[in-house]
């Protein structure tokens, strides 16, 4: 077993005997980061690799994502895994819009990121055409380690995100681009 274990360092803040003070963003970010509830939008082969990620060998639950929520209501992270056909586009968009803010999206696999090897008339060439995506995980299908790496990238994003980002006009502009009210 490798003895190099990195302990995540505490966010910057004042240290004193018996207390620790830091900015609200960091505290809220720390809390959100380690309790992401994923919505596994698993459509095909990447879904089976996600089952390996959730199973006991790779165990995504170590990262705080124990509970998979199949409804968009109690989901923070939409993991789109597998090919999204054009027939599936409106369904994916509806599920994304019904998620509660703050919400993040991972496009797992080549098909979700860019249509992958299926450049055909019936496949949506990448889900960023219909919903904003935060992290792309390459691979066809990506190994469970890659999916976990994608979740860790999302955790970094969430840790550093400011509490006011969803009200900022830059985020509103992004939403207008996707016509999401």
């Amino acid at each position, binding site marked *: 077993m490798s003895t190099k274990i990195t302990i995540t360092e505490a966010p910057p803040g004042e240290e004193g005997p018996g207390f620790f003070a830091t900015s609200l963003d960091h505290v809220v970010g720390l809390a959100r980061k380690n309790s992401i509830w994923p919505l596994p939008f698993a459509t095909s082969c990447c879904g089976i690799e996600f089952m390996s990620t959730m199973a006991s060998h790779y165990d995504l639950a170590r990262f705080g994502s124990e509970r998979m929520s199949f409804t968009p209501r109690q989901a923070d992270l939409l993991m789109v895994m597998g090919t999204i056909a054009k027939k599936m586009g409106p369904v*994916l968009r509806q599920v994304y819009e019904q998620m509660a803010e703050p919400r993040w999206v991972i496009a797992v696999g080549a098909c979700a990121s860019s249509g992958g090897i299926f450049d055909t008339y019936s496949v949506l060439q990448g889900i960023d055409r219909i919903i904003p995506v935060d992290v792309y995980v390459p691979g066809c299908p990506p190994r469970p380690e890659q999916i976990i790496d994608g979740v860790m990238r999302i955790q970094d994003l969430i840790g550093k995100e400011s509490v006011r980002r969803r009200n900022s006009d830059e985020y509103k502009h992004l939403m207008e681009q996707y016509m999401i009210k």
Partner: protein
Amino acid sequence: MNSSSIPYDYLPIIIQFLVALGFVVLVLVGTHLLGPKASGKRHDASFECGLDSIGNARNPFSVKYFMTAILFVLFDVEVIFLYPWAVNFKKLGMFGYIEIIIFLSFLMAGFYYVIRKGVLNWQQRESQE
């Protein structure tokens, strides 16, 4: 002087109560202020596995659901009545035992009526198509 009516003896309990109440209020108000809001026509629509829901959800549903629920409440409350008896059934002795037997027999009669009436099983209405 151990008159127990001086109010300050209850101070810890009041503080404890306030802390609990304060926590609840703080969390509710804090998340309401901190958390971003997303609302919109499609966001507030009911989740229908990704599709738009058709028709409204308020049309009448089979009475069997209601029957099952009410009967559950009834027999659950009956079990609650058993708790005080169960706690000191040794002290109550034979008197308590007979009382419970009478109480239970009334409810069992009701249960027998429900079973014979066939309210609980769904089988009766065979599918027509």
